[in-house]
């Protein structure tokens, strides 16, 4: 996991790495929560390029952050989904509520960031 602050766009970019299953979930969840607490007025862009595997436990982590952030009217975005990740997030309905983009740049030029 690697995090980058884009201060001009007020966006926290987190690049997830490896596998996001039930075993990896607690640590990634806590790291994400800590960062979101630290930058309370930032949006979150999850770059999933180097995420080689996700299952429903990982879906739970992403939806959990979506719920936390929706309450605070903060935005969450995804980008760079590989085939396995796309299939799982699509089936689980995640892509219906969280927008997904082809690259970090595309994501940062969309929606509220473009304003």
């Amino acid at each position: 996991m690697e995090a980058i602050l884009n201060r001009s766009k007020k966006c926290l970019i987190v690049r997830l790495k490896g596998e996001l299953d039930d075993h990896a979930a607690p640590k990634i969840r806590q790291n994400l929560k800590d960062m979101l607490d630290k930058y309370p007025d930032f949006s979150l862009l999850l770059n999933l390029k180097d995420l080689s595997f996700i299952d429903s436990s990982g879906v739970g982590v992403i939806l959990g952050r979506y719920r936390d952030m929706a309450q605070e009217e903060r935005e969450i975005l995804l980008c760079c989904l590989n085939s396995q990740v796309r299939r799982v997030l699509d089936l689980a309905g995640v892509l219906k509520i969280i927008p997904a983009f082809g690259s970090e740049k595309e994501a940062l030029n969309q929606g509220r960031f473009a304003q």
Partner: protein
Amino acid sequence: MKKRNFLLLEIPSKSENESLARVVVAALAAQLDPTIDELNDVKTAVSEAVTNAVIHAYDEKEGIIVIKAELFENELVVEVEDRGSGIKDLEKAREPLFTTRPQDERSGMGFTIMENFMDQVEVITEEKVGTRVIMRRKFNSVIPVGE
């Protein structure tokens, strides 16, 4: 149909063994020359079944998970068995989004993923005895026959 190969794997219900189980079943399934997407579907479904045994069946305590995988002509049959709590209401459990552990951020999508990524999912469960999840998947890729 002739059985081409099989394996039996016993592991303790530790979360680090979820990836181990995926790797093992995928290594066997790879012998049928599936596509990467087909193999990923199997890995994901196995991950769901094994995670359920770790999380729901044994509830903190450590138990044994038994995984059987068999290759037939061009089909993989995987069985994930635990001797844990069993499932009270199986029909409800198989509904999308249903989970008995929302507080742990479980998505309730485990069974839905298994059903969509495999051709067939059979669940045999009895309270206080345990659960067996039997999943089948045919691969469309070309198979060398008569080895």
